[in-house]
């Protein structure tokens, strides 16, 4: 883009008339020397972004590089020495880490459910089910509570001698050891996570609905189409972008925001069956004092997130094209 007579290289983004503010400024300033103000103006954007960029580079991006490097060094006696892939080999032999990866697989399998539930609820709220305003407000609330608070509350409700089992007892169902049974605990924690976060996806779906072309929906209704048909042929194609967004953010949420629940509800137990990578990283760093091993786990987690994100996007792209 030619800057023409503009003395400053800094312009408001979509420059209005060709010779933008700079030229007008210069006209106005007349004989006044403009060089000083344009010099400071040229620097001004950098002054504005500098503190933020400094913080992000130093404390977000640089640590990523540092961590990957760090994962190839040793712990304890071998602190600081290069050990090649040893940490990764250790990871792949650690049943706790393998269990954590297995649980990630479980989360991927449960993902469609965690997306479909808020999607269906949002559909009904959009169709103005009686009480829809209240439902929206109530459903969204747990999403703003800390996982710590949610976990603490469910610790009370799900204790072996707690209220839920007492309730089950009155209808003749045996007590379930929600958090103590190695076959059940991970489902319990994931269930609580979905309970606590479905409101977030619901609100995103509702924002998507507000961009949906309502004439299509009206036409389908006039034709007397059944609800499942409307969902399949109108809503899902119309919301493909939103659905894609919810898939990715829900998966990221499952991989990065369940620490609080795990920490409060199971501490990785019973028998290490409720580990997720983020909990494993915390244990190795905070409890076992093995930061290099933790870094290797971090790198694997980052890789998993990149792969999952790309896979989902490509799968959804393909289904987009199939429409």
């Amino acid at each position, binding site marked *: 883009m030619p800057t023409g007579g503009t003395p400053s290289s800094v312009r408001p983004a979509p420059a209005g008339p060709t010779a933008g503010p700079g030229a007008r400024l210069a006209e106005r300033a007349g004989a006044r020397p403009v060089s000083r103000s344009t010099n400071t103006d040229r620097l*001004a954007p950098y002054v504005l972004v500098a503190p933020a960029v400094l*913080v992000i580079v130093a404390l977000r991006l640089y640590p990523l590089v540092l961590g990957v490097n760090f994962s190839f060094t040793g712990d304890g006696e071998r602190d600081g020495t290069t050990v090649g892939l040893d940490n990764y080999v250790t990871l792949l032999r650690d049943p706790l880490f393998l269990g954590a990866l297995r649980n990630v697989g479980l989360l991927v399998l449960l993902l469609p459910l965690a997306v479909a539930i808020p999607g269906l609820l949002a559909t009904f709220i959009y169709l103005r089910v009686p009480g829809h305003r209240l439902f929206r407000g109530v459903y969204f609330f747990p999403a703003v509570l800390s996982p*710590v*608070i949610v976990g603490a509350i469910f610790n009370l409700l799900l204790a072996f001698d707690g209220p839920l089992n007492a309730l089950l007892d009155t209808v003749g169902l045996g007590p379930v050891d929600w958090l103590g049974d190695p076959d059940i605990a991970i489902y319990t924690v994931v269930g609580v996570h979905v309970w606590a976060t479905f409101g977030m996806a619901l609100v995103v779906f509702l924002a998507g609905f507000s961009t949906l072309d309502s004439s299509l929906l009206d036409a389908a209704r006039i034709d007397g189409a059944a609800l499942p048909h409307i969902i399949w042929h109108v809503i899902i194609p119309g919301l493909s972008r939103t659905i894609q967004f919810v898939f990715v953010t829900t998966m990221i949420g499952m991989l990065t925001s369940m620490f609080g629940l795990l920490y409060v509800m199971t501490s990785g137990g019973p028998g290490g069956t409720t580990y997720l990578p983020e909990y494993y990283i915390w244990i190795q760093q905070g409890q076992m004092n093995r930061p290099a091993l933790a870094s290797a786990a971090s790198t694997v987690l980052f890789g998993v997130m990149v792969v999952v994100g790309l896979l989902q996007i490509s799968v959804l792209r393909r289904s987009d094209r199939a429409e």
Partner: protein
Amino acid sequence: MRTSRWLAAVPMAALALATIYPLVFTTNVALKTRHEYVLDRFSPADSPRLDNLATAWGSVGMARYFTNSLIVVTCAVALLLLLGSMAGFALGRLRFRGSRALYLGCLAALFVPFQVIMVPLARTMATLGLIDTRPGLVLAYVAQFLPFTIFLMASYYAHVPAEIVDAARIDGNTLVGVYRRVMLPIGAPALISVGILNALFCWNDVLIALLMMPSAENRTLMVGVTSLRGQYSDDIPTFAAGVLIAAVPVLVIYLFFQRHIAEGVTAGSTKG
């Protein structure tokens, strides 16, 4: 359609009850005596008493944790809004050499989760002598939530007409002056939304606080709640009172700012 809507309302109402009941239950337990709780968990408290809340606030130490959280969250949010609006204005509203690359860099940071960088970050913070200090935790929160803040502020400022910037500059403002006198006031609605969201994120966090603040007297409120579990496992009403104290500020913010929170959460989804 009409009947199916009513049919859907019944399970949806049941789900709404299931969503709200755990909190009602906890509140009720917090108002009971231990004896009452053991006799009947579900019955409404005979004579609701605030003893448990007072115990949790005082001798359990929730007051100290509450103060810690309040100080750290206030400072972090103030810094986030300042740095985020400065960078958001520059990256969203101005074109300059490198602006595109800087914006993409900030966006990339958005996709680096804390779990991935927490080990090297803890090392860096230790080297700087910031572990177990409030400035250290504030800085960690700013680093964590700044990319998101910049992203929202930049997309807000991108919709401010260019003429407004031009007019302010014709009036003799430097760009920094335009930011201070024009962009900050114009950005107020976005700053409120982003500020509330950031306050919730920081208030609710436990992982960063655990990593940055290992000593007991520096605990934030959420870390304090996690420590209740071991200490009060046989005194459920006091435990419930502690949990309630930590939840009430969030409940209040939610009741007043629900719309702002929903707007902030969905901002990224429609811009795609």
